[in-house]
């Protein structure tokens, strides 16, 4: 995974539930954020509606019409087994977007909670956890994920587990740095002095002021997960055939790179667009969270 800059907002916003609504409102006021959301939304819609929009099944083979170019019958042509590329791209979206959105949930939740805990309580727990984080980060990314997928087995389950085991570290790091800042603030100390339990402080004061950072990062993280799945496909460790997935479509199209360029090019387009959309969302949110 790639690590973002730790840009702790210099001024945590005051504690109130209304603050969440104001962030949301400001987010939708940001043109960048809205643009990004539109892009992501469009592609997600297309993927969800795949069974309705596509004219062929994703695995419908036709040995007499292989490697054809775009035509009226096949808008994006056919692949080496005669399957309709447009249909496969749509269905691949369902697989990939599902993995992208779902695989980040565990790292987000676990990583954030862990980050808050170690940042707040510190001590040996903190030292041990951060050493573990350092170890995982020190592994060249692909090596660890590859090793885990090897062990667990390729396919969706292996990918989910491998990502769950490696991706949480960034969230922990981000949230911990932010927690360290928030923890020192006067009003937090005052809350504790006023008799608030640790749990309440964590829940009502620390969490709301740290989680926006994580939300911003999650947007980029979904793209990294998608890229990880694509790369695993390139290395032969990804989604098992014949389930379509943008990554393995690019990988399978590689054999035809010099003759049928579009087979490898086209599945990359939705990945790029999703990446663009999510990054715009992240940018917009970062701008919104920046103190004025």
């Amino acid at each position, binding site marked *: *995974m*790639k*690590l*973002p*800059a730790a*840009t702790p907002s210099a001024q945590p916003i005051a504690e109130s539930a209304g603050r969440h609504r104001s962030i949301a409102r400001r987010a939708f006021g940001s043109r960048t954020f809205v643009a990004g959301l539109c892009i992501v939304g469009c592609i997600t819609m297309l993927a969800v509606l795949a069974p309705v929009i596509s004219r062929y099944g994703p695995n419908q083979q036709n040995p007499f019409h292989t490697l054809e170019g775009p035509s009226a019958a096949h808008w994006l042509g056919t692949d080496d087994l005669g399957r309709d590329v447009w249909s496969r791209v749509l269905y691949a979206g369902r697989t990939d977007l599902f993995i992208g959105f779902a695989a980040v949930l565990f790292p987000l939740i676990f990583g954030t909670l862990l980050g808050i805990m170690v940042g707040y309580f510190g001590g040996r727990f903190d030292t041990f956890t951060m*050493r*573990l984080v*350092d*170890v995982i*980060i*020190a*592994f*060249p*990314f*692909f*090596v*660890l994920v*590859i*090793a*885990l997928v*090897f*062990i667990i087995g390729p396919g969706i389950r292996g990918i989910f587990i491998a990502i769950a085991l490696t991706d949480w570290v960034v969230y922990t790091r981000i949230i911990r740095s932010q927690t360290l800042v928030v923890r020192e603030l006067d009003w937090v100390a005052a809350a504790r002095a006023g008799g608030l339990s640790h749990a309440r402080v964590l829940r009502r004061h620390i969490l709301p002021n740290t989680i926006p950072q994580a939300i911003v990062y999650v947007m*980029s993280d979904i*793209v990294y997960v*998608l*890229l990880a799945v*694509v*790369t695993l496909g*390139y*290395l032969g460790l990804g989604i098992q055939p014949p389930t379509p997935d943008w*990554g393995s479509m*690019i990988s399978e199209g*590689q054999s035809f*790179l*010099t003759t049928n*360029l579009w087979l*490898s*090019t086209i599945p*990359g387009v939705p*990945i*790029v*667009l*999703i*990446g*663009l959309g999510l*990054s*715009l969302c992240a*940018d917009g949110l*970062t701008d919104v969270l*920046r103190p004025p």
Partner: protein
Amino acid sequence: MSDTWRYVGTRLLHAIPVVFGVTVATFLLLHLIPGDPARQLVGLHASPAAVATVNRRLGLDGSLLSQFRDFLSRLLHGDTGTSFFYGVSTRSLIVSRLPVTAALVALAALFCVVITLPLAIIAAVQKDRLTDHAIRVIPLVGLGMPAFWIGILFILIFSVKLPWFPVGGWGISYSDHLRALILPALTAALGIIPLLIRSLRAGALDVFNADFIATARAKGLREGRVLFLHVTRNALIPTVALLGLNIAYLIGSTVIVERVFDLNGLGSLLLEAVGNRDFPVVEGVTLVFAVAVVLVNLGTDLVTAQLDPRIRLR
């Protein structure tokens, strides 16, 4: 000065358990992966006796615990073992392949800085104008592109259609090497540049908002020099920090980039060794990568400390 040395010492001391952790984790993971190195070495036709003989030769016939003890004692003596496949010492393999990867990572880092700096500062200066939006969007497109895909496209465009660069391989002379590295380094850099542009632009905007500029102008420096000296120096800090943080990613991406561009570096060696279940080589290369990441992180922190007089090393 002695402060710095003490800081370096402490950091290195803290790095040792991390590197150790990586090595131990690698060992364990390797032994968990299905697939038998001995069988990979003798082939499909070999008898069980042949497999057993090879297992003994490779030192894989003991219990996991005894293998681990042997592994640790070897490591503490600085012995990274002998490659199952190549039959030569892991160290010699790593030494012969290291220059390629080191050069690749260095050039990629250089590209990161050289491309990010002007683009990000222009974007910050032109904030919210068309140039700003254009600069922010274009690298975002690069964020979503898989490295192997960009690589192949680069080859098709810049090596096949336009014969500007070699199609692959390392070449013979130093200038050959440089030409061979440009496309791969660019491919690797494109994975991180979007992040860096975003960060540097934000950092530059922060500096624009601050009083530095007002003070500097008050001191009578010309506009251009103000921009260059203060903005760059202060905006550079989070970017260098970010680059350092992402070195692990850059190093990891050499695994793919070297494969696509047919470069004989540590990345392709690692990939090959994992496929071959060549345990000593995987352990050795992972160790080198981990040490590199730790050292680069340390270096990054020192550099940012130099750049920002406000940071005190603790």
